[in-house]
């Protein structure tokens, strides 16, 4: 079979493969993570890599980016037709490969500019040329649509802005092959727009982009080709024009998904949460993050909170849970009684549970095992005189592992080694065990695979049926639309719109969230 790379003709530039990964096999003790995977990306194309969590996408990208050095895998990598072997990440970078990780890899205490040029600072006689660094950093920031000063410290930026800085950092490396691993997981709609624009520009410049995403609309908007991985094998490479969302999702999961959002009409009970004229002040600055909020949630109801990043949704949830440092004003009523929640302990006692948006940083103790994390918020219920009944602990955590179908080797497995979806199930188990009346979910399905998402939706429906009041914050519009009985839209700290399940559409939510009319 003739190698396409050598088919030079006048129009052939576009058809050259920038990257060929041929028969890549990577084994871990006892498991084949990649099984003869072939993956080819042309110059000037955006190539989406789809697959459920655990399908092997990240492993494949780690092979490509030199994280797994040559020799630890079988198969061949070619760049522009020439075989290459990377001993480390630096080798891969020098070959023009840049990766934007799903987990942000920025130094929090350093400025944006320092991060963009980390390890490649412009130098003269070993002295960093700060003016040049910040000047260039600013131009890269403009390219990704960020108007912040390059001298801003990373920790003062939101997650979405940090993600854009990551992208600016990769662009500054002038890569020929750019890998984006779930780049929009933390971005708002407008930031996603900026990113799409950048990628289209890069495509025109001949950069090969590998785009890993769970989000089908994005994939179908951007990608020229789509490769689906499943269980460590490359299942198919499709041209976007010749396929559709349902086909790709079916290939990913190996089954047809008939309903992606299992919405059920529910019978609503009494009012569980009533928030009246609630305002939250910024923890440092004299400004309100939430202003005059009115919210009610009934037993058995799933209430969606939509809005853009920075609309104050997470702060509202944290404040109701007693975990936000800023002062709160207004009234909170739980089941007809006014409550004053000053700490997380108060909140748990009153029957509120919060599944936080950042499970690794806020939700779990990664070094501790499944059972310890499961029981952490309700140790009191399984202890007498402060002494933990360890058999009860095993019993309860096993119960939740079974109920939520958490995939774990044992109850003594450290949660840090589980996949995202299973970690999220452990967080959910922790709060289910606390038997909440009101369950607040902040981005409950961020970065987890389709199967686990679906299970979490079913769990939400089941809890609602049992009479739990659920408040779900989500940046994924389809999820909000697909799961909520009622939707509040927030913008700049205020509730600007309330919609029923039947009224809501992507358009009217987005309109309210962005302030358009």
């Amino acid at each position: 079979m003739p190698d396409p790379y050598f088919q030079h003709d006048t129009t052939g530039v576009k058809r050259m493969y920038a990257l060929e990964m041929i028969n890549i096999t990577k084994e871990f003790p006892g498991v084949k993570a990649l099984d003869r995977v072939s993956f080819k990306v042309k110059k000037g194309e955006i190539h989406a890599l789809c697959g459920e969590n655990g399908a092997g996408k990240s492993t494949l990208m780690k092979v490509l980016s030199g994280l797994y050095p040559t020799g630890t895998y079988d198969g061949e990598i070619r760049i522009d037709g020439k075989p290459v072997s990377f001993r480390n990440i630096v080798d891969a970078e020098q070959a023009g490969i840049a990766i934007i990780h799903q987990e942000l890899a920025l130094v929090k205490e350093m400025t944006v500019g320092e991060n963009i040029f980390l390890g490649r600072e412009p130098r003269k006689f070993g002295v960093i040329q700060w003016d040049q660094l910040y000047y260039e950093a600013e131009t890269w920031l403009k390219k990704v649509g960020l108007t912040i000063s390059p001298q801003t410290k990373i920790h003062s930026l939101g997650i979405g802005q940090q993600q854009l800085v990551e992208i600016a950092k990769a662009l500054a490396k002038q890569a020929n092959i750019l890998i984006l691993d779930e780049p929009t997981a933390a971005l708002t709609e407008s930031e996603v727009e900026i990113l799409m624009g950048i990628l289209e520009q890069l495509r025109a410049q001949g950069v090969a982009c590998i785009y890993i995403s769970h989000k089908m609309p994005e994939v179908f908007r951007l990608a020229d080709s789509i490769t689906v991985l499943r269980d460590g094998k490359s299942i198919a490479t499709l041209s976007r024009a010749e396929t559709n969302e349902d086909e790709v999702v079916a290939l990913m999961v190996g089954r047809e998904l008939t309903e992606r959002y299992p919405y059920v009409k529910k019978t609503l009970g009494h009012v569980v949460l009533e928030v009246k004229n609630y305002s939250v002040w910024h923890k440092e600055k004299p400004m309100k993050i939430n202003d005059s909020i009115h919210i009610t949630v009934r037993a058995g109801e799933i209430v969606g909170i939509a809005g853009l990043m920075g609309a104050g949704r997470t702060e509202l949830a944290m404040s109701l849970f007693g975990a936000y440092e800023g002062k709160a004003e207004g009234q909170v009523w739980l089941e007809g009684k006014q409550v004053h929640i000053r700490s997380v302990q108060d909140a748990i006692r009153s029957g509120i549970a919060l599944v936080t948006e950042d499970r690794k940083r806020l939700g779990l103790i990664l070094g501790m095992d499944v059972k310890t994390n499961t029981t952490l918020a309700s140790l009191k219920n399984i202890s007498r005189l402060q002494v933990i009944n360890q058999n009860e602990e095993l019993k309860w955590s096993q119960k939740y592992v079974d109920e939520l179908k958490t995939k774990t080797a044992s109850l003594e497995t450290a949660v840090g080694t589980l996949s995202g979806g299973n970690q999220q199930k452990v967080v959910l188990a922790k709060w289910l065990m606390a038997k909440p009346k009101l369950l607040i979910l902040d981005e409950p399905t961020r970065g987890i695979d389709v199967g686990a998402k679906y299970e979490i939706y079913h769990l939400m429906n089941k809890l609602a049926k049992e009479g739990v009041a659920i408040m779900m914050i989500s940046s994924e519009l389809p999820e909000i639309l697909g799961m909520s009985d009622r939707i509040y839209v927030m913008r700049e700290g205020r509730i600007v719109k309330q919609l029923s399940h039947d009224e809501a559409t992507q358009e009217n939510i987005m309109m309210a969230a962005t302030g358009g009319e």
Partner: protein
Amino acid sequence: MEIKAVIEQQPKKKNVFGKIDIRAYTMIGALIAIWIFFGMLNETFLSARNLSNLFTQMSVTAILAIGMVLVIVAGHIDLSVGSIVGLTGGVAAILSNWMGMPTSVVILCTLLAGALVGLVQGWLVAYRAIPAFIVTLGGMMIFRGALMGITKSTTIPIFDAQFIALGSAYFTDVFGIILAAMAVVALFVSTFRKRKSRQQYGFTVSPLPFELTKLFVISALILVFVVTMNSYKGIPFPIIFVIALALIFSFIATKTTFGRHVYAIGGNVEAARLSGINIQLHTMMLFVFTGLLSAIAALVLTARLSSATISAGQMYELDAIAACVIGGTSLMGGSGTIIGAIIGAMVMTSLDNGMSLLGMETFWQYIVKGSILILAVWIDIASRKRKTN
């Protein structure tokens, strides 16, 4: 995630030996190797008399290390324990010698002083958010200064025989045997109760022969220990303190909500806070514990030396930290065991004792101890890396 899937497919074969803490066994192995090494170079090292001395010597470091483990697990450090030992030792000597108080009052007041000092430091760390390193570094200087002030920089001898007995008495042979018998009975009873309870819950238990073998081995070790000690003068009194405190604090660390919360705080303080754990109260209590344990160590030390000096306890904080680290406690917080720290203290003391017996010069002793500390952590980190790869 890929790996997990495969593990799931394998039949759920429980490890026949139950949960074995490989790290703990490695440390015990290392300790035995050190003993054999010194035993071969100098036959007096393994004599009953020397072993008895060794255990008495290690008691102070071990008691301090017990408290230090929990502080380090929670992500803090306590540099002041050595100075608290000095200060509370001085308080004890003043009460006993200058003021002629009975032993019981001396003990009570000393413990109170230790706990109080810990409370103040703990409050500053927990509720005023001053880094523990700074608070206890300051404390280290302040308490040493206070000791010099209250004792007017003199050495205060102890004459109260009851007090001195705390550090230098031995249990009679018969009492030692009775203690051993009680320990063995308690061991069997608790093991079988646990088995029964697990079975009631329908959990798997390790096979009975294995469990019995384990129990007999531990019982034999207890017996060998008592017989060895009895062949000299009996079980040294301070060792009982160490054993009792180790049992109590191991229980607190592994079986109580307090202990669980401390490990959670060290593992991820934000997640712990959002799980409804009172971070500040727990943090403060840890320093109360180290203060209290330092006072107990001070009583043992002052009694053993039958005097309080202004240099008592100097550098002990570093020995305690080293013992924890050798025993596998991570300075990053979140992991560490009491038993590990005790073994770590034994390793440190065995090195001290062994090298002194060999007549090694002091400068070499420091160099060797320092190197062993670094080596232990090096091996630990290397083995962890191999495990994750």
